C-alpha cells in the first residue's frame, strides 16, 4: 500500500517492445564477438550474450510483444549457434557441448522447474504467495523414491510423492489462509520443515546413504528405434514420460486458467477476493485447492528428479530448483507459456553449464547463477509495468 514507493521514469525503457529490441541487439552482438576484429576464442561470451538475448525475448513475449519477443529468442539462439560454430577448434569439441542431446538435457533440467512453476502459478494466481515450492519439491523427491522403493512401482512412488507435497502445502495453506499468517514467513517455515523432515526420514529409513539402486523408475517414451541416430531421435526420441507430461501440463493449465470458469474464479480470488466473495465464490475453498494443487505439482517435479531422472536420492537433492521455479514464474509473468519458456531457458543454461568445462573454463560454474541474475534484472524492470495478481500475499477475511 505504500504506493508512493513508486516507479521511476525507467518504465519506458522496459516496454516489452524495447526489451525485445535489446534482445535482438544482444543476439547480433553474440555473433559479432566471434568474428574479426574481436575474434573471441572461447564460445562463453557468445553463449552468454545469446542466452541473454533469448531471455529478453521471453520476457517481452510474455508481456504482450509476442512477435518481437519470439523474434528476439530466435536471433539469440542463432547467435549462440553461430558464435559456437565460429569458435570451434575441432568438430569433436563442438559435439561435446552442442548436440541434439543438449536439447534433451535442456528438457530434463527444465521439467522439474516447469512442474513447480506451474504449481506456483496456481497458488499465486489464487492470491497465496508460495515461497515453499522448494520444500514441497523436496518432499516429493524423497517420499517419491521411498514410495517407489516400498510399493515396488514408480506409479506408487509418484502418487506417494505427490501426496506428501500436497500435505506440506496443506500446512502452508492452513497457516496462510485460516490463521492469516504472513505468507512469506509461512513459506520459509515450510521450506525448513521439508529440509528437516526429509533429512530426518533419510537418516531414519536409509541411514543417510543406501537408497536401493534398483527402484522402479519412470519409463522413457521411445518414439524412434534405438538404432536411429538422427537429430530428432537424439533430441526427442527417448524422453522421459514426465517430460511429455510437463509439456501437456503447460497446455492444460493454460486452458484451465484462462478458458474455464474454474480458472476465472481462481484468478478472481487473486485479483479481488472481496468481489469474488460477493458473487458467491468460496474464496477459502479455492485458495486451499490452488495451494494444495501447487504443492502436488511441485512434488511431482521433485519425484521426477529422483524417481525419473536420477534413480537415487541424496540429501537436499533439489538444491534450490524450487527457487529457480519461482524465478521462472515471475519471469514468465505468472503465465503458463511464459513460465515454461523461462524454465526452458533456465534448463538450457544449466545444461550448458555442465558441458562448458570441456573448454576447461572455471567460469562455467558461474553459469549456474544465471537464472538468479536474470530474475534479479527482470524483477528490477517488471514492477510497475506488469504486475502479479493484485491481492497476492494478502490474507482474506470473510465478513
Amino acid at each position: 500500500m505504500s504506493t508512493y514507493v513508486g516507479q521511476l521514469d525507467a518504465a519506458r525503457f522496459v516496454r516489452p517492445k524495447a526489451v525485445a529490441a535489446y534482445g535482438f541487439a544482444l543476439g547480433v552482438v553474440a555473433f559479432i564477438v566471434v568474428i574479426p576484429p574481436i575474434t573471441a576464442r572461447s564460445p562463453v561470451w557468445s553463449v552468454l550474450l545469446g542466452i541473454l538475448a533469448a531471455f529478453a525475448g521471453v520476457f517481452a513475449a510474455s508481456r504482450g510483444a509476442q512477435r518481437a519477443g519470439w523474434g528476439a529468442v530466435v536471433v539469440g539462439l542463432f547467435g549462440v549457434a553461430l558464435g559456437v560454430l565460429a569458435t570451434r577448434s575441432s568438430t569433436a569439441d563442438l559435439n561435446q557441448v552442442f548436440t541434439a542431446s543438449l536439447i534433451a538435457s535442456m528438457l530434463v533440467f527444465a521439467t522439474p522447474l516447469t512442474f513447480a512453476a506451474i504449481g506456483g502459478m496456481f497458488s499465486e494466481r489464487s492470491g497465496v504467495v508460495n515461497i515453499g515450492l522448494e520444500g514441497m519439491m523436496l518432499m516429493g523427491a524423497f517420499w517419491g523414491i521411498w514410495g517407489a522403493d516400498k510399493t515396488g512401482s514408480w506409479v506408487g512412488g509418484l502418487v506417494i510423492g505427490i501426496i506428501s507435497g500436497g500435505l506440506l502445502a496443506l500446512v502452508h495453506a492452513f497457516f496462510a489462509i485460516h490463521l492469516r499468517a504472513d505468507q512469506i514467513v509461512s513459506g520459509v517455515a515450510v521450506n525448513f520443515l521439508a529440509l528437516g523432515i526429509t533429512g530426518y526420514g533419510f537418516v531414519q529409513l536409509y541411514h543417510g546413504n543406501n537408497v536401493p539402486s534398483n527402484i522402479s523408475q519412470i519409463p522413457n517414451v521411445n518414439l524412434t528405434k534405438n538404432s536411429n541416430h538422427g537429430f530428432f531421435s537424439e533430441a526427442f526420441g527417448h524422453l522421459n514420460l514426465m517430460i511429455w507430461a510437463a509439456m501437456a501440463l503447460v497446455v492444460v493449465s493454460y486452458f484451465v486458467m484462462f478458458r474455464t470458469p474454474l480458472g476465472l474464479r481462481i484468478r478472481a480470488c487473486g485479483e479481488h477476493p472481496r468481489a469474488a466473495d460477493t458473487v458467491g465464490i468460496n474464496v477459502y475453498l479455492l485458495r486451499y485447492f490452488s495451494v494444495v494443487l501447487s504443492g502436488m505439482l511441485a512434488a511431482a517435479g521433485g519425484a521426477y528428479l529422483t524417481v525419473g531422472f536420477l534413480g537415487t536420492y541424496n540429501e537436499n537433492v533439489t538444491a534450490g530448483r524450487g527457487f529457480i521455479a519461482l524465478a521462472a514464474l515471475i519471469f514468465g509473468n505468472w503465465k503458463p507459456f511464459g513460465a515454461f519458456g523461462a524454465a526452458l531457458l533456465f534448463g538450457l543454461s544449466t545444461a550448458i553449464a555442465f558441458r562448458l568445462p570441456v573448454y576447461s573454463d572455471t567460469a562455467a560454474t558461474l553459469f549456474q547463477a544465471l537464472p538468479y541474475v536474470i530474475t534479479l534484472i527482470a524483477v528490477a524492470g517488471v514492477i510497475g509495468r506488469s504486475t502479479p495478481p493484485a491481492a497476492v500475499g494478502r490474507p482474506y477475511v470473510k465478513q
Partner: protein
Amino acid sequence: MSESLAPTTPPEPDTPPTTVAGRLDLLHRAGGIAVPVATAVIAFAIGGLVVLSSGHNPFLAYRDILNGAGLNWIAHPWDVNTANTAPYNLTQTLLQTTTLILTGLAVAFAFRCGLFNIGGQGQYFMGLFVASWVGTSFVNMNRPLHILVGIGAAMLAGAAWAGIAGVLKATVGAHEVITTIMLNWIAYWIGSYLFQQGGPLQGAENKPLDIPISADIAKSAKLPVFWGDPELQGLHIGFFVAIAALIVFWALLNRTTLGYEVRAVGYNPDAAAYGGIKVRTNYVRAMAISGAFAGLAGGLDMLGYLFHYGVSDVQASGIGFLGIAVALLGRNTAVGVALAALLFGALLFGTTHGLQSNVIDPSLAGHLTEIIQGLVVLFVGADLLIIAVWRAGGRIRKRPPKAPVAEAAS
C-alpha cells in the same frame, strides 16, 4: 508481498496491520514474553513427538543434546565428570551463538523497517569470502590492522550485497524477498566458483591435490582466542563483538534519529512519508545496516575459527537462514535475539558434533534442529493463532471457539 507488489488495490478496512512491524507491535501487546516462550516449548514438544515416533526417548534425547551443548557445565561447574568435555562444548556453542546473534540481527534490523531480509545467508557468504581474500592476501600487515581491515571489508561486502536489494526496493519497488532470495543463490554460486578446483581463492597447496578449499588465512589476521585452545577452535573475541553489536542494535534503533526513522517507516511508510521521513533512503539504509551485521558474522567466522573454506562448506552452510528463526523467536529485539541465538546455538552444536548419545544418532539429531527451526518460524508467523489462544485462555468456556479469532482481527 503485501505492500508494493500490489500498489493499485486500496487496503481493505478489516485487514490486520499489514506491515511486518505492525504485526510485531500487535504481538507485543498480546502476551509479552510468554508467547515466544510458548512458541519454543510447542516447537520442542512437536520435535519430541517426531523423536518418539522414530523410536527414541525424547526426554533422554533432549537431555543428551543439552549436555552436548555444554550447558550442563553451568549447572555443575566442579563436577569431575563434566569438567573434561563440557567447557569445550560450551565454547563451541558460544561460537555458534556469536554467528547467530549477528545473522539474527541482520534479519531483525530490516524487520524493524518493515522489510523481510531473507538474504542473510548471501550476505554472510559475501562477508566470509571477502574476509578469506583479505586474510590470505596482505600477509605482511601488522596484526590489529589486518584484523580490522578484514572485518571492515566483510561488513562492507555484506552491506553492499544487501544494499542491492535495498536500492531495487527503493527505486523500482522490487520486492525485497524475491531479490534477496536471488542474491542468496548468486552468492552461493560465487562461492562455488571461488573455491572450486582452479578457482581464484583455492589454496595454492590444494591445487595439485584437486582439493576445492581455500588456503588458511595468515596468522596476522586470526582473531585472539580468550577461552580454550586456539588450535582447537577456541572461543575468539568475536563473541564480545557480537555482544557489542547487540548494544549497537538497541542504541541505533532506540536512541538515534536514524532508528526513529527506520521504526517509523516500519510501522507505517505512508505516515512516515507524511511526517517528512524519506522512505526510500531508509529502505536502502536499513538493508545496508542489516547486511553489515550478516557480513560481520561471516568475517568473524572466517578470521575467528574457520580460517579456510571450501565448496562443500558453501553447500552445507545454513546459518544465515537460521538467523530468520532467531530474529522471529527473539521478537526482533536485542535481548530476544541474544536469548534465541543462545538457544539455537546450543541446539546447533548439541545436535551435531557435541552429541555423544546412545539415545539418538547425531546425524538424526542434526535434522531435528531443522524441524524445530521450521516449527518456530511457522508458529511465530501465525500471530492470530497465538493471539487467539492467548485471548481465549480467559473465556474459553463462555464463547464459541471461533469468536476470539474474528475479534482479534478487528
